[in-house]
């Protein structure tokens, strides 16, 4: 079963992905398409293969079988160096716990991808500050992650994921550790900025209220997409 539909060439396309962790088949023939600028929710119960699918789509993990094509390039065949470059420049990633660097302030966390891409420190801090502003956490710019609330930390993590102007943001349960109001702020910020910047989003969630921010939903069951297009 698959999620293949539409006529325009997708920005990202996965076909018949299989991936095993030891003897467990996390993915078992999953296919999915992502159009440019689209916000796609991937839902399913625990153990349905959501996170493994995201890792394959983002080039973090190579599938055992199947193909992942991003803008004409086969991610499943690319050398690690090129994958790493794509993850730095074209993709942004956010996890359930933002995984901010505890020793750096919020603004330096957000500026880090820019420094890695060759920007100067002053420019990185200025652009990072602008992104913190867009996510409503400018006032927390000089705080370290330990001094931020869960919702603030996630908004800083989103700013870090978007600061390089990625074409796709991969978000794995970005609101999983937040209460409903903080979750709403994070999702409003994520969707609003993605729409403004034209970035596509792959949003992994077990929460239907979070999935409802997306344009479309695909639902995984036992490592495969539950039904073609019907969930959209």
């Amino acid at each position, binding site marked *: 079963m698959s999620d293949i539909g539409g006529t325009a060439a997708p920005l990202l396309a996965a076909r018949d992905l299989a991936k095993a962790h030891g003897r467990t088949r996390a993915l078992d023939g999953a296919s999915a398409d992502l159009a440019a600028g689209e916000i796609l929710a991937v839902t399913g*119960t625990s153990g349905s293969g959501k996170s493994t699918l995201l890792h394959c789509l983002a080039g973090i993990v190579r599938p055992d079988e199947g193909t992942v094509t991003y803008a004409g390039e086969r991610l499943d065949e690319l050398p690690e160096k090129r994958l790493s470059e794509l993850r730095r420049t074209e993709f942004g990633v956010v996890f359930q716990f933002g995984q901010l660097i505890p020793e750096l302030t919020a603004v330096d966390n957000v500026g880090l991808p820019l420094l890695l891409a060759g920007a100067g420190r002053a420019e990185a801090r200025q652009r990072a500050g602008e992104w913190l502003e867009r996510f409503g956490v400018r006032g927390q710019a000089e705080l370290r992650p330990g001094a931020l609330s869960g919702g603030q930390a996630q908004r800083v993590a989103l700013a870090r994921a978007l600061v390089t102007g990625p074409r796709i943001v991969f978000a794995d349960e970005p609101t999983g550790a937040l209460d409903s109001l903080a979750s*709403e702020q994070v999702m*409003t910020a994520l*969707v609003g900025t993605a729409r403004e910047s034209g970035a596509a989003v792959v949003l992994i969630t077990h929460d*239907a*209220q979070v*999935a*409802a*921010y*997306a*344009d479309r*939903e695909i639902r995984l069951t036992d490592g495969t997409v*539950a*039904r073609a297009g*019907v*969930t*959209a």
Partner: protein
Amino acid sequence: MSTRHILLGLLAQGPSHGYDLKRRHDERFPQARPLAYGQVYTTLQRLVRDGLAEVDGTGSDGGPERTAYRSTAEGARELAHWAGEIAPPAPFVTNEIFAKVVVSILSGGDPEAYLRAQRAAHMERMRELTALKTAKGADLATVLSADYALNHLDADLRWMATTAARLTTLTAEVDTA
């Protein structure tokens, strides 16, 4: 839902006529079924009959003549009593989705297919409500009513997911009942 208490609540802000009460009701409860004028006037007459509201006066403001109503002290007491009274938590479990699943099992239908299609419809409605409440300039009444609906649809979805997982067992139980 108690239309008479909602009208008393709107009258608590001051005298008002039927047309205005209908308009304010629809503003305050934006996702509710709009009140019919006939229902507003019938309810106002009953409130007057029961001593909970009274006629405040009539005026035309250049248009057709309208009767304004105000709440009485008894009406204010009744409103406070109702607003603080606990609503019975789900006294009867009667729900169309639940009924369709059971009937589908009884009649040899395909409850799994139904649940998948219903889930898709729920998600579509949840996307609409989310867009509504996150739109720029959404007022408090819209946000609150969308939140309420979203949480109830979400509860349906969780029940539907559990039911889909239980279907094998449930089918066996209904078959042997």
